[in-house]
């Protein structure tokens, strides 16, 4: 697919927000899905080579534009920051499974750092379906805490934590979440793997269903390369799932965390 970059805004030194116009994409996508994007304007440049995966952060109400919230970490994301408004960019269809969208439930959303990106779209969908939404949003420090106004709009409670205490509660995001867990029917999470593992364990201990969005390194995003395997318990067996097409959303209670975390 192709679409025009409408905005590519620097939020702070670490995060950017890009809005792309594509009705075709918006009509297909659901919360939790991601896409692969060519992190450069030119297809004849082979460094960086592969497309990069990003979660869908938001869709406008007219279903014409979608956005990605991205953190600058390496070559690809650095180059993404230089893409100018008005440029046509190449990306894949929406890929993967999506979060379960419940109705009229009390849900917790736990996001860590850039893991917050696909949770915005999720919160919006859950609110539309009359859920009571509590968002736990944790970061290293204040610059990781972005989009708070928007998150307030799509949640009933927004709990912010930072490791250095620069905004919100000082400490890990899992702490306030664990304190409140008995209030919830369902838990959603995205963020660093260590955090997802903790969120899943806490949820399991309290017998709460939990869905996590996993980021594995990806080459194809099509289910072909077998580079993005996640090990999951199914019945009594451990089975291999391709994070790109059979994920990125997994039942947190089933994931073999020891094979994932590094």
């Amino acid at each position, binding site marked *: 697919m192709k679409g025009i970059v409408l905005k590519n805004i620097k939020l702070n030194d670490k995060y950017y927000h890009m809005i792309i116009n594509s009705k075709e994409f918006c009509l297909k996508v659901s919360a939790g899905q991601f896409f692969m994007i060519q992190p450069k304007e030119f297809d004849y440049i*082979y460094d960086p080579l*592969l497309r990069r995966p990003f979660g869908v952060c938001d869709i406008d109400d007219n279903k014409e534009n979608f956005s990605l919230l991205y953190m600058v970490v390496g070559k690809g994301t650095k180059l993404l920051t230089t893409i100018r408004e008005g440029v046509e960019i190449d990306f894949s*269809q929406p890929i993967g499974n999506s979060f379960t969208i419940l109705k009229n439930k009390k849900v917790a959303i736990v996001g860590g750092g850039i893991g917050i990106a696909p949770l915005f779209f999720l919160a919006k969908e859950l609110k539309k379906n009359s859920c009571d939404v509590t968002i736990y949003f944790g970061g290293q420090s204040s610059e990781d805490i972005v989009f708070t106004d928007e998150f307030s709009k799509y949640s009933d409670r927004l709990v912010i934590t930072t490791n250095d205490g620069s905004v919100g509660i000082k400490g890990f995001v899992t702490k306030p979440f664990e304190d409140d867990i008995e209030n919830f029917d369902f838990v959603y999470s995205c963020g660093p793997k260590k955090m997802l593992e903790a969120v899943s364990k806490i949820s399991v201990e309290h017998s709460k269903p939990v869905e996590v969005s996993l980021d594995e390194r990806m*080459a194809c995003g*099509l289910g*072909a390369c077998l*580079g993005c*395997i996640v090990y999951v318990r199914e019945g009594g067996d451990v089975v*291999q799932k391709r994070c790109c097409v059979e994920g990125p959303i997994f039942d947190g209670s089933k994931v073999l965390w020891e094979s994932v975390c590094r």
Partner: protein
Amino acid sequence: MHKLLNINLCGVEFKNPIIAASGTFGYGLEYSNFIDLNRLGGISVKGISLNEVKGNPMPRIMETSAGMLNAIGLQNVGVEKFVKDKLPLLRRYNTKIIVNFWGKTLDEYIEVAKILDREDVDMLEMNISCPNIKEGGIAFGTDPKMTYDVVYNCKKVMNSKPLVVKLSPNVTNIKIFGKVAEEAGADAISAINTLLGMAININTRRPFLSNVTGGLSGPAIKPVAVRMVYELYKTINIPIIGIGGIMDYRDVVEFYLAGASAVQVGTANFVNPEIPLKIIDDLESYCLKNSIENISDIKGKVITN
């Protein structure tokens, strides 16, 4: 439709010489939602073995400059499931099916070849060059005697299908391996598989791949691949399928000039699944523009005097 691009490879008619490379195209079906598989000359499926293989632990892939490393470890469903579950679905498409296969032992190679030879596939491609598994694989591709044995013995049990032998670039002299495979009965050679490489994460001080080393593919390796196809073309008389870093039609022309009779597109499928179709269109235009009646006319036509 594609007269300019029709080719005959070991008696099999391909509508065009663009074949999806093994391991980069799954069982073909994965791509069916993204591109029209009927337009491809052929598909070489993920390397099949006698029994199901789970592959290496994660992480298995890493990008490098103009290339990528992989150590998937030949994960596959095994020949039985492949034939039962995948092949019938794949056969619905009008494209040639090449089955890439391998074994941990000589007997396994022979056994898989025997099974596949009876099935509704167009060609077999023997992988003796995968750098990412401990047993078998690359050992068969880096010792001329073992290469001879495995090719000779598989060919002996095959009655109907052409056998392509896929060579490893991790050798001092690829001509020897081309020659040996030819003598042992190979109907064609495909070259190259990946170069053995390694990358280390300086933050964790661990290799980026759990397997420590992996196979390097992509545009980075194209000059090595073109050189090896050229060397093989001067040495052997069976057709060569050129592989390595092909990203556009120009690369295909380059491999043809070096001596290839067809090509496989690998890593490019990851970069963008539409690349093979774009190559087919562009290659056709190229032939038209340059008054080339059939792409085969430029095979080996590099001028080196």
